């Protein structure tokens, strides 16, 4: 049987693609019904419902959403909700779509969540480059306020919520939750040391919850379906559906919402049409630039966050699946990804600031015919200063996850293409004394 999508979060935008972002189309297809239901519940009951659903963050880390909410210290106010719409992980384009094409679903999720955690102000931190998304969200917020889904005394419930749309200005690390809060405070988006965790001391040093756009867009459906029903979808601790952004050398690049547990093969070959031009796959990246690479032998593995991390030593991350055909030079891809990390390193932690640039320089010479025999080991040695042991879950010498992410392309190269890289460079020269091996 051909694999199919399970459209929950993408249902409206697929069914009425010509008007899904308007309040009329949204309300006609059930928007804000979950909000009415939620406002009749106790806030803590909503948190329990989301816990029961097993919903895990869709931004990358995969932390339990309901669990995160329950970390808020009792009785401490004000609290803030921050919506992470700073989608910048290379080849991820799901939040971009959700913001542009179903802003009311997001707003409904925000209002329900803010009510659940008793926050009266929510900030939507939207990636600065999403200009159309900002227009659509602004209009949607305006229309939602006019209909009293947002604002004072939401639908007569006594609950007040103001939502502020805040445009970023071009910065990957503002997508880290503590970087986002720094940026929202008018600073450089340099991540903060945790603890204190944002739930205890976040924005303006007040208890703060940061959730991804897709996570919040899922919340209305959990309220509608019930947490137990939602948890029936998926596999193990990876419940529900996720939107995977498939791109690269595939016939049909795009966003596909599938039930977790589907195989990479069904996603890449079934839904995205497989490698284009009838070529063979050389490798694929399962969850954004920060995730170590996988190869064809992993295609039958399930889209299951725990399996991909535990068994395959990679991660589903942001759900960006990049596919590369047999003609791709893996060194060039590794170089370009390392250039990304070198560019986006905020400069706060020395191992990342210095390491990312050195790794980029060495990969550049390797990709351009100037590689030296010891270069691959030299890279691992650099990496050991950023991610001691080079193993997931990451030990790290940096404040945030960008540091360890720099090594993912190098780990991919070493795991799957060491022979190819060494053959190209030649096998003579001074060896580097290694303190670490790739797990």
């Amino acid at each position, binding site marked *: 049987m051909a694999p199919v999508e399970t459209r929950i979060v993408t249902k409206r935008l697929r069914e009425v693609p010509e008007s899904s972002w308007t309040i009329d189309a949204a309300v006609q297809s059930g928007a804000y019904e979950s909000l009415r239901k939620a406002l009749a519940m106790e806030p803590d009951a909503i948190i329990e419902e989301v816990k029961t659903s097993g919903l895990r963050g869709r931004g990358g880390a995969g932390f339990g959403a309901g669990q995160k909410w329950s970390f808020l210290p009792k009785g401490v106010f004000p609290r803030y909700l921050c919506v992470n719409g700073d989608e910048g992980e290379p080849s991820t384009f799901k*939040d971009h779509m959700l913001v542009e094409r179903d802003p009311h679903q997001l707003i409904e999720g925000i209002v329900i969540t803010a009510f659940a955690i008793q926050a009266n102000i929510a900030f939507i931190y939207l990636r600065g480059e999403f200009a159309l998304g900002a227009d659509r969200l602004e209009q949607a917020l305006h229309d939602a306020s006019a209909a009293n889904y947002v604002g004072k005394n939401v639908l007569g419930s006594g609950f007040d919520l103001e939502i502020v749309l805040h445009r970023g*200005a071009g910065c990957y690390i503002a997508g880290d939750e503590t970087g986002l809060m720094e940026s*929202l405070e*008018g600073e450089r988006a340099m991540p903060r040391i945790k603890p204190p965790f944002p739930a205890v001391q976040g924005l303006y040093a007040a208890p703060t919850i940061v959730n991804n756009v897709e996570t919040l867009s899922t919340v209305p459906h959990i309220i509608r379906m019930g947490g137990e029903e939602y948890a029936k979808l998926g596999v193990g601790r990876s419940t529900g559906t996720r939107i995977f952004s498939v791109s690269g050398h595939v016939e049909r690049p795009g966003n596909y919402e599938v039930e977790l547990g589907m195989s990479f093969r069904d996603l890449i070959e079934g839904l995205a049409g497989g490698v284009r031009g009838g070529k063979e796959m050389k490798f694929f990246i399962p969850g954004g630039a920060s995730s170590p690479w996988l190869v064809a032998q992993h295609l039958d593995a399930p889209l299951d966050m725990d399996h991909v991390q535990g068994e395959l030593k990679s991660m589903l991350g942001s759900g960006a699946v990049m596919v590369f055909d047999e003609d791709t030079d893996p060194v060039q891809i590794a170089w*370009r*990804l390392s250039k990304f990390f070198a560019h986006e390193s905020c400069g706060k932690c020395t191992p990342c600031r210095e390491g990312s640039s050195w790794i980029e320089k060495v990969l550049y010479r390797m990709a351009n015919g100037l590689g030296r025999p010891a270069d691959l080991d030299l890279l691992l040695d650099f990496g050991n200063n950023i991610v001691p042991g080079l193993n997931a879950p990451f030990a790290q010498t940096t404040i945030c996850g960008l540091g360890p992410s720099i090594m993912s392309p190098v780990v991919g190269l070493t795991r799957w293409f060491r022979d190819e890289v060494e053959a190209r460079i030649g096998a003579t020269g001074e060896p580097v004394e290694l303190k670490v091996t790739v797990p």
Partner: protein
Amino acid sequence: MPYTEANLAQARETIARYPFAKSAVLPLLHLAQDQDGWVTPEAMREIADLLDLSPAQVLGTCSFYTMYKRAPIGKLVVSVCTNVTCLVNGGPELLGALRSRYAADDDVFVEEVECLAACDRAPALQVNYEFHGPLEAASATELIEEYKRGDRTPRTISGTRVAAGKAS
């Protein structure tokens, strides 16, 4: 240029939306760039005054973010992605072609950018933050020319929508 009267009113309205004024640094920088086409030193000083910060604090934040241009760049900023999905679909070649085509054109600023989250239409680019793709050199040049001729209304240099016919 200092903020116009209307923009100053908008700036004050924006500041009032935040529990702490300093949060308005980014939106006020966008507003200044909307008005002047780049972020002038005068604008940063004015923002500092409005938010009770030092000009150095505003510059410190401003210089961290790629969308703020601290020198005039013309009327159109063309952002070409060369990250991996665009790389394997011709992004670098597109960037190279547009860079040489517009090297001497003061109105068009071509820049290389990181992933734009439009990988399903790679190679992708933005013109004043409006998404376009997939494109190759010829279709991208035609597109930019349409903006230059006024057949398309560009957003501001900060990506704010401009009502049709009002483009400067």
